[in-house]
């Protein structure tokens, strides 16, 4: 074909913007340069043909029939199975390591030792084995003989803070009485807060505690390393970041990054815990390299509890005061982040939704001999929100003010007012007890509320290609991953809508590091990063097609050519999609899309209302109803967004009422590393859920909501428990023993 001379386009003007970027699951911001252009936007939120509607997910049939292939399902010829040997002690050093017997066992192909020789939490990986079946690998791991020198440990925050506590991590700079503390933040003026507190009409001084929570991804961490020597490798990974894999794996395998392909077609849950190859991935790479065979190393369920990370716990001491008109005038907070050997995470007080006159806070990481916390859905926010919402409730009751009105008075943003009104209507807030515990009978009902926020927003990492074939096929390709959030579905919908096609007319290809770049799915940044690039590619595809088809449509101007209902038309002439595409060059056409800042936004608001029933004879809490009102700019897919809101409510229900890592103080080991002992939310406990998308948010931009909807419900549930029975439980989870102890204390003081 003769090459046509292309006119040199004028380079677009550039501008600098700050965007969120997720590093190891933690959201930070970076400054980037983007083209200063604005093309066609999304248009009004209520004028879409596919987007904002209830789109069933495109991979639904695969998942519902067991045909979706996860990393755990990968089986390659000659593949070996890996198993990890973990340290049983909270703190120990290896004295002797003997794998000679294990190495001679049937089916064993490789044994490697972890690079560390001192272990600082029970469950730390010591060695790994690859064998021909999972059972034989397990046998061999058990047959490795390790002798440890057991060292002093500390696993409880209350013990770790004491001056005489064993030291979790060695350091030189610590004052002797702060050996396990790391100062993270100090904000505000302590003296001003003291002065403001002195002028308050009511004060609450309380301690709030949340335990460490497990992600409990149903597909455990792990990967299949397809490497048999040679110059290239493929990694099948269960990950939230397709592009976080090749670099890490290449280092372990001694290859260059471009020789390693990461693939993630479906993944069974991450919730913030799956970025990079992790320790298990490093071990899998080393086993594969040693055995010169593909190795699948998936953590066992107990491995997953002991070494795959967790949500950091929190210990917060807060003193706050209000004026009798309901103005929160002063707040001081001492916040400890309980992240094991890691740093933990916790949003600062006062929680970002509220103003607090004068405030002062100190935030510390308080370390223990436990597996490091990692990011988990809205890192640090549910913990901070639980304390703040509980505190606000205590203050509201103290001055006899409606908790909803009290919140409105102290919120930074009026968007919450309409959301609180909507939620209050939905749960029928007027039915609540005006006096806590006033309900009749042993089973008492109560209501509570809370509010949350999240930044979200996108960044410019997504590179999308749309290819239209001569046969009418449409392919949208980008390396991103779908965590079950519906990424595939909205990607397809954006292109189909732009080209006037149906969902089934477009195919998407994702989940490979050999496709266009994409960001990691963390910090609710996926939709806001990906959808603008997809939209940009789709718009460019439409214009490229329009230019090609103009001669067939009376030389209409490209912008006058309509793409609708499977037809391409202009000036009274119309072509079916197939006819139109038949006129394309044999290779079809491809358009490339880049991120556009104007198509996405930042900052969401949400509130939760909860109703519970507390049995004051048994202490049992039964959730009755939960309502979540959430904005998010343009809701790309109403059906999947509602599912996410449900998911947020259910996960926080678990944190509020049932979940928590339980440690044995003397042995330093976790007592509940399995689903039999770690209580996940189950079918029998589910209340009625009402997920409400706040359509009064008219922003025509995409913003992620995954984190936001897990934040406000902890406070809402704890406050509902108080409203029901008059017991304020400040330590999660709200288990029957705490209710009964509270009731007993109340009877004693009465």
């Amino acid at each position, binding site marked *: 074909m003769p090459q046509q001379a292309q006119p040199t386009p004028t380079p677009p003007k550039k501008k600098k913007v700050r965007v969120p970027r997720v590093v190891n699951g933690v959201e930070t911001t970076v400054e980037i340069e983007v083209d200063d252009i604005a093309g066609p936007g999304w248009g009004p939120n209520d004028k879409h043909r596919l987007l904002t509607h209830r789109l069933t997910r495109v991979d639904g049939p695969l998942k519902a*029939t067991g045909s979706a292939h996860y990393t755990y399902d990968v089986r390659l010829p000659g593949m070996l199975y890996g198993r990890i040997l973990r340290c049983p002690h909270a703190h120990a050093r290896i004295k002797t390591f003997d794998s000679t017997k294990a190495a001679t066992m049937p089916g064993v192909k490789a044994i490697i030792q972890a690079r560390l020789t001192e272990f600082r939490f029970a469950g730390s990986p010591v060695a790994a084995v690859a064998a021909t*079946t999972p059972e034989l690998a397990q046998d061999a791991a058990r047959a490795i003989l390790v002798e440890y020198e057991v060292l002093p440990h500390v696993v409880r925050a209350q013990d770790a803070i004491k001056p005489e506590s064993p030291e979790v991590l060695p350091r030189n700079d610590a004052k002797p009485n702060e050996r396990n503390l790391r100062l993270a933040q100090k904000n505000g003026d302590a003296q001003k807060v003291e002065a403001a507190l002195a002028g308050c009409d009511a004060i609450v001084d309380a301690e709030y505690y949340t335990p460490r929570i497990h992600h409990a991804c149903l597909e455990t961490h792990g990967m299949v390393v397809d490497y048999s020597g040679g110059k290239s490798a493929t990694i099948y990974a269960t990950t939230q970041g397709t592009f976080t894999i090749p670099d890490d794996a290449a280092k372990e395998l001694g290859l260059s990054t471009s020789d390693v392909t990461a693939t993630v077609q479906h993944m069974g*849950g991450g919730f913030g815990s799956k970025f990079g190859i992790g320790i298990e991935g490093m071990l899998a790479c080393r086993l594969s390299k040693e055995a010169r065979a593909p190795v699948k190393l998936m953590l066992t369920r107990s491995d997953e509890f002991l070494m795959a990370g967790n949500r950091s716990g929190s210990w917060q001491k807060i003193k706050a005061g209000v004026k009798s008109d309901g103005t929160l005038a002063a707040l001081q907070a001492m916040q400890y982040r309980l992240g094991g050997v890691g740093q933990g995470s916790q949003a600062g007080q006062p929680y970002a939704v509220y103003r607090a006159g004068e405030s002062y806070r100190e935030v510390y990481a308080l370390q223990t001999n436990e597996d490091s916390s990692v990011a988990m859905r809205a890192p640090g926010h549910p913990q901070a929100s639980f304390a703040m919402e509980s505190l606000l409730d205590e203050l509201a009751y103290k001055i006899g003010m409606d908790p909803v009105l009290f919140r409105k008075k102290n919120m930074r943003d009026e968007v919450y007012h309409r959301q609180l009104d909507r939620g209050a209507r939905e749960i029928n807030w007027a039915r609540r007890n005006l006096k806590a515990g006033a309900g009749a009978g042993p089973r008492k009902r109560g209501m509570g509320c809370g509010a949350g926020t999240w930044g979200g927003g996108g960044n410019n990492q997504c590179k999308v290609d749309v290819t239209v074939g001569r046969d009418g096929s449409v392919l949208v390709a980008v390396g991103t991953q779908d965590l079950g959030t519906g990424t595939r579905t909205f990607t397809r919908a954006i292109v189909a809508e732009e080209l006037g096609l149906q969902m089934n007319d477009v195919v998407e290809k994702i989940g490979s590091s050999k496709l266009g770049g994409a960001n990691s799915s963390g910090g609710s940044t996926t939709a806001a990063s990906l959808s603008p690039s997809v939209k940009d590619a789709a718009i460019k595809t439409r214009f490229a097609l329009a230019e090609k088809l103009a001669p067939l449509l009376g030389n209409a101007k490209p912008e006058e050519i309509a793409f609708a209902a499977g037809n391409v038309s202009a000036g009274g002439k119309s072509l079916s999609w197939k006819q139109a595409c038949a006129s394309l060059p044999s290779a079809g056409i491809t358009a490339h899309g880049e991120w556009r800042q104007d198509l996405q936004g930042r900052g969401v608001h949400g509130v939760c209302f909860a109703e519970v029933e507390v049995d004051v004879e048994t202490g049992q809490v039964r959730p009755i109803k939960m309502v979540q009102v959430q904005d998010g700019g343009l809701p790309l897919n109403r059906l999947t967004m509602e599912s996410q809101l449900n998911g947020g409510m259910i996960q926080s229900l678990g944190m509020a009422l049932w979940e928590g890592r339980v440690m044995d103080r003397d042995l330093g080991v976790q007592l509940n590393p399995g689903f039999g002992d770690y209580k996940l939310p189950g079918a029998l406990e589910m209340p009625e859920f009402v997920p409400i998308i706040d359509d009064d948010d008219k922003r025509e931009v995409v913003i992620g909501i995954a984190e936001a909807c897990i934040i406000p419900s902890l406070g809402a549930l704890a406050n509902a428990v108080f409203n029901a029975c008059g017991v304020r439980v400040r330590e999660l989870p709200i288990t029957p023993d705490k209710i009964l102890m509270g009731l007993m204390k109340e009877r004693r003081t009465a």
Partner: protein
Amino acid sequence: MSDEPKKKSSNYDPSRRKFLKGVGVAGAGAALADSLLTHDTSAANSDIDAAGAPVSGSVNIALNVNGQRRNATVEPRTTLLNTLRNHLEPGVTGPKLVCDMGTCGACTVMMDGKPVYSCLVLAVDAVGKKLTTVEGLGTPENMNGVQKAFVEYDALMCGFCTPGFVTTISAYLKKNANPTLAEVREACRGNFCRCGTYPRVFEAALAAAKAGGS
């Protein structure tokens, strides 16, 4: 009646090794009738008849999976779940390995129509039984009623628990074609979801029942 369990023979040995061997042989007994089980004479460690020898040998079995006869070489201790996923060629990977100890339901399959946790069934004990996995209930192009409802009501997110729920509910609707919400919850009590799909799983189950079951 004595509180002592009745000993089947005088050389009763309660050790785990003998127990496993016993299970293997019991499974073999049922299977031999259908001539579905043969000792793997080619395997080096197939001496499971030798008295006191460790039961680390392997046996050839055939399973009836989704209407097909499927052969596998397994150890007596190999679970049905592990056999389906790792020992059949090609593997049947719809049932998921999540807890491997009977707490989560992701590995649920139907054994003679009854939902069982396949991580708690030894493969040798599944010989001669009619096994149905989620793949046997429908295909993406031809889904059963429960699968259709799961897609329509968005009763799945990451999808890792989905095969277990679909199988559990499909089996339950055969038993109770017109369940209440409370009955659906009860039927699902042995299945965990982490993404939080429960409310829509219940909706899907009720809708599938209304539309005529699985």
